[in-house]
């Protein structure tokens, strides 16, 4: 079937097999390989991209379902002059990545999370990342990065700025 999907602002019309997964469209048709495949069961979130601005797992979408829609991958996040998106910047500053494999999906999940909830608590960040696995960072610095990208929260007595986190008994 012929599909026309806008990926990172560029329109691309092409024939694809009906069963082609969106992640393979992004990687093999659009040639954008930052988005990775980490599992078969929509468990790991490595393939997370934005579809019309919302995070989705591109391994659990057919390319034909995205026909006529906008897809954003991590390659499309920085501005044209190379300025990093605040989430990308925060990942670097907080050492939120090690091997880098989960990173594109993790960044896109957080971009979507912060659009819906610009000043989340640490707990909200953690539960917002329940669908994204990382095996290197223990999530610690990823959570820091998400909170840093969000900027200082409205003072509501939340615990996000306490470095230790957790519950003090």
């Amino acid at each position, binding site marked *: 079937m012929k599909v026309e999907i806008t990926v990172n602002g560029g329109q691309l019309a092409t024939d694809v097999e009906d069963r082609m997964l969106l992640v393979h469209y992004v990687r093999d048709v659009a040639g954008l390989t930052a988005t990775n495949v980490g599992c078969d069961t929509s468990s790991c*979130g490595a393939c997370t991209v934005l579809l019309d601005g919302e*995070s989705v797992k591109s391994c659990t979408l057919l390319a034909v379902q995205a026909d006529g829609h906008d897809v954003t991958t991590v390659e499309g996040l920085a501005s044209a002059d190379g300025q990093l998106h605040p989430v990308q910047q925060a990942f670097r500053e907080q050492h939120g990545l090690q091997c880098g494999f989960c990173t594109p999906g993790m960044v896109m999940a957080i971009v979507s999370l912060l659009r819906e909830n610009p000043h989340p608590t640490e707990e909200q960040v953690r539960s917002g990342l329940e669908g994204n696995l990382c095996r290197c960072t223990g999530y610690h610095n990823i959570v820091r990065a998400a909170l840093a990208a969000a900027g200082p929260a409205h003072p509501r007595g939340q615990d996000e700025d306490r470095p230790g986190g957790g519950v003090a008994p």
Partner: protein
Amino acid sequence: MIPAPFSYYRALSVDEALDLAAEHGEEAKFLAGGHSLLPLMKLRLALPEVVIDIGRLADLSHIRDAGDHITLGALTRHHDLEHSGLLARELPLLACAAGQVGDPQIRHRGTIGGSLAHADPASDLPAVVLALDATLVARGPSGTREIAAADFFGGLFETALEPDELLTEIRVPKPAAPRWSFQKFTKRAIDWAIVGVAVQGDAVALVNMGETPLRAAAVERALADGAAPRAAAALAAEGTRASADINATRDYREHLARVLVARGLQEAHARA
């Protein structure tokens, strides 16, 4: 992993979807958000020859106040249920449960109709609509029919829907009492419920305690007879047929059902 080959059809109206379903019969599957069907197709546990994409039927995505009840289009996404102001006021149980389905990415795609039609006893929303005494509206070649939630779930992944019928709408009566609770017990947040409990007023429904979502009938009877919540909750496992798997034995599920029903009733009462 990728699905086995199939033919893809995109329906642009309910009528077209029904025509396609009639044409292809049992070989066809409706594709809504795809978050139940596609994982099974990738694992090649589901091998439909025809996939009918109903994802673009915008008129099936809505949340409306209809006076004494709320109507929900079958394609309303979990995300939309979770963030609906109307539901927060009128059906907070549903909004809360929808917010615990899967993860944010899944909630951006998954739909209430898809979840109900898939009829996985471990999924949350079937038990919720059961507790809410919802009515499910299906359209088929011979018109529209209404199915009570209690009659909808027939068995493991089985519903009262015919292959040529499409679930189009869910009608939920506005609860009389504001007492509700949703208890979902998992090993990890992302997991399916090992056991879940939905409470609305004196209605109590169970997730993953049998091949279908179940009403905790013994608990409800005891409550109606004036039993204290804790005493009623002790009956939560009666009439259930929980399975055993790597996360829980049947005994443990039954224990959890009692604990979670007690907590659910307690939380619901605290909202009164």
